[in-house]
């Protein structure tokens, strides 16, 4: 990388989001300040036979009404529809539209999770093919089953479908990334976009993540891996990061996409600036069940992000932790923060949005970054919801009541994707 490339700075000039607690950064902030997690029994489907039966859902969401296209509403799976809407909001928030975007110089980076077409697409065909004994019958399937499979099934199942619809709508024809991940995708997409703009591969990137974990299969998978809380009787209290009684996340859903721009281009067009993306590190904890090894890896990842941002540990004013509330996950990230930032790291405020929204999957990294920009704008840090009995072995200064009138210039975001993908981002406030 040449000297000139090193100097390209990257500003965030737009954001669009949907979450269980609001559809603007201001809404999410206000609801977080209210201090209550909106988790409840799953409404979207019958979860009675699952070990985890609670979730945080985006209320009153009707794809058909909101997407304004019957075809898109049919083809986009839950999560993807949030992504599509967040993209539209981010582009409009940045003061851009399809005419003003320079297609070949504009890229898209998405973190998501998708597992093909809805398995439900095949249920009618299977039902029509069952013998009286309940066995699949090949001939019945050929005769009666196949024709019941919706013809758009494969298009619906494309892993990159949502990215395509967004790129098509806003003419984003440049570099592109679609990362399949389990929670780390949005943060990775932002970090890789920072790199792409610095290298000069793009001047503008639409980047972030979308996800929905509120479906039968994911709840079954995630709960069986002990990643989700089973506190079904007290849904609002279930997700408790860094608390002595934590037992995992609450599955949620949402999207947050951002417009990242080469700073010079942003200034030239008079864009309003949320803040600056300054440094990125990524790493994988291996072996993934070895907490000491994971801590070492995450420590290196944080140092990498600081070096990339060209700042020292003492220049970090606050930390936004991942806080997935798993016993090991919370331990690793608090220890790594202490290792990488030293004593300073144990003294600065440490918070997380996660227990106010539930785990937004691949949208969590970008959503939490949005809240860091809010914090720097308001010079306020909100407390960790449900942190009632901080785990005494975790060494950081967790925020348990609002802190106002701070001097927040720069923050560190930690993101953990399961099982052990780590991302660290260093962000600065608008105006330096």
């Amino acid at each position, binding site marked *: 990388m*040449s000297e000139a490339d090193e100097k390209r700075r990257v500003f965030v000039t737009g954001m669009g989001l949907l979450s269980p607690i609001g559809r603007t950064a201001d809404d999410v902030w206000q609801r977080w300040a209210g201090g209550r997690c909106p988790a409840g029994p799953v409404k979207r489907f019958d979860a009675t*036979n699952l*070990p985890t039966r609670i979730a945080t859902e985006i209320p009153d969401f009707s794809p058909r009404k909101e997407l304004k296209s019957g075809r898109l509403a049919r083809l986009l799976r839950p999560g993807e529809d949030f992504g599509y809407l967040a993209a539209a909001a981010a582009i409009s928030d940045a003061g851009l539209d399809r005419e003003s975007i320079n*297609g*070949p110089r504009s890229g*898209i980076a998405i973190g998501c999770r*998708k*597992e*093909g*077409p809805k*398995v439900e697409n*095949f*249920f009618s065909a*299977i039902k029509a093919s*069952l013998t009286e004994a309940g066995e*699949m019958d090949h001939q019945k*399937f*050929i005769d009666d089953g*196949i024709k019941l*499979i919706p*013809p758009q*099934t*494969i*298009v619906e199942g*494309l*892993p*990159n*479908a949502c*990215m*395509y619809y967004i*790129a*098509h709508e806003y003419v*984003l*024809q*440049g*570099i*592109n*990334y*679609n*990362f*399949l991940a*389990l929670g780390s995708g949005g943060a990775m997409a932002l970090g890789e976009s920072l790199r792409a703009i610095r*290298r000069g591969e793009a001047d503008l990137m639409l980047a972030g993540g979308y996800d929905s974990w509120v479906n*039968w*299969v994911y709840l*079954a*998978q*995630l709960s069986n*891996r002990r990643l989700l809380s089973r506190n079904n009787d007290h849904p609002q209290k279930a997700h408790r990061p860094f608390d002595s009684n934590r037992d995992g996340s609450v599955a949620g859903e949402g999207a947050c996409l951002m417009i990242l721009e080469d700073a010079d281009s942003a200034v030239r067009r008079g864009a309003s600036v949320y803040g600056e993306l300054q440094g990125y*590190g*990524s*790493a*994988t904890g*291996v072996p*993934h069940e070895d907490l000491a*090894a994971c801590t070492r*890896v995450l420590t290196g*990842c944080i140092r990498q992000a600081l070096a990339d941002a060209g700042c020292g540990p003492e220049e970090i004013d606050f930390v936004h932790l991942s806080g997935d509330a798993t016993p090991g996950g919370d331990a690793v990230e608090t220890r790594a923060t202490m290792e990488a930032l030293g004593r300073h790291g144990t003294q600065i405020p440490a918070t997380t949005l996660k227990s106010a929204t539930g785990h937004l999957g691949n949208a969590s990294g970008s959503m939490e970054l949005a809240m860091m920009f809010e914090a720097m704008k308001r010079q306020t840090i909100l407390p960790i919801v449900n942190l009632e009995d901080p785990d005494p072995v975790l060494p950081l200064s967790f925020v348990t009541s609002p802190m106002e009138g701070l001097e927040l210039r720069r923050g560190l975001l930690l993101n953990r994707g*399961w*099982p052990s993908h780590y991302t660290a981002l260093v962000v600065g406030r608008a105006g330096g």
Partner: protein
Amino acid sequence: MTARKARRVVVTGMSAVSPLGNDLASTWASVKAGASGVRSVQSFDATDWPVQIAGEVRDFRVDPFLDESQRSLGEILPRNVQMGVAATAMAAEDAGLQPESIPPERLGISVGAYTTCINLRQAAGWRTLMVDHAPPRYPDDEKRIDLRLPQVSIVEALGDRWRAGGPNYVVSTACAAGTQALGSAVRAIEDGRADVMISGGFDNMVEEVVLLSFSLLGVMSQRNDEPERASRPFDRQRDGFVISEGAAILILEELKHAQQRGARIYAELTGYGASMTTEHITDAATDGGAPAAAISLALQDAGMEPEQIQYVNAHGTSTRGNDKSETMAIRKAFGEHADRLAVSSTKSMTGHLIHAAGALEAVFCVMAIHDNVAPPTINYEHPDPGCDLDYVPNEAREMPIDAALSNSFAFGGNNGAVVFRRLQE
């Protein structure tokens, strides 16, 4: 440009698991012989289905490639990850890679992969669980393959085994994923975030529901009576692609790192470019414009002129739209030099490995440079006026090849191109 890249990336190991063979030697020998790996589907009963042919990997077992400590994983890993495990082990051996000699954070993974692993029996099982609620309580710690978390599989099976603590990308851009995974790996090394990347792709879309869904879309060859002649890229009588499965892994390494440990260097990966076709989700770019942009960006990134490329491994799916559009894209990006290029589609032999296609075709590009042989496009019988390049018809061609480019264009619009070159001092 090569000259201004402070950190250069070379290929020090490769592997393949494909319908043409379960290792690179047998796969490459079949490619040079112009053999087809497409057959009637064996792994399930496709009698009377619209599409009854595919490129399947035969007699594959993952056990020999698993560590002692990982034996219990074998049966619960999805088949695509199983093939990825095998390909990684073979590529690492080829490269003489010893994970204990590399700090974990300097070794990363970037693979094109998707997570569909479902057949009708599994779908029926899901229906029972989700609709009939039988059993009434979902069993705890059930190790069902269809409920495994794909990310967990990749980290457990590859990350843990190879102590790959660096960047970890699972790139999921359908038919372009293998190539785009190489792109992300190259950038990670160039940017100084890793010294070695395990990169490539694996996929097993030869599954009942996938075969059915794709055939409903009308983009697959239905030449069921002549499987070996079904994939016929650039031929006037082409009628769609043939779905396949397999894996290919390349060990990408920073040049000095490779030289210091005395590794064999197959070639340099000099350039990568990507773009997005934004016209239609499953149709090829009508004027070849966006794919041409990816090719030009890759050449520019490599610091090379079009005239320096001798061989192009085409995306060449054998669909009506792609092959014509790609021909236009190659003409647009290479100008007059397009007529002097050897352009072939190895999908004529392997079928379409979807998320692994770009990775396998990158391996073929490197082997083309290594052996100075351009692989053929087989089943090329009837010239199409819309496809008028030199497609290396039916027989491999010995010719000097110093640099080769591989194209991948996805359903969903993602395009990627990657350039390999014989290592220059």
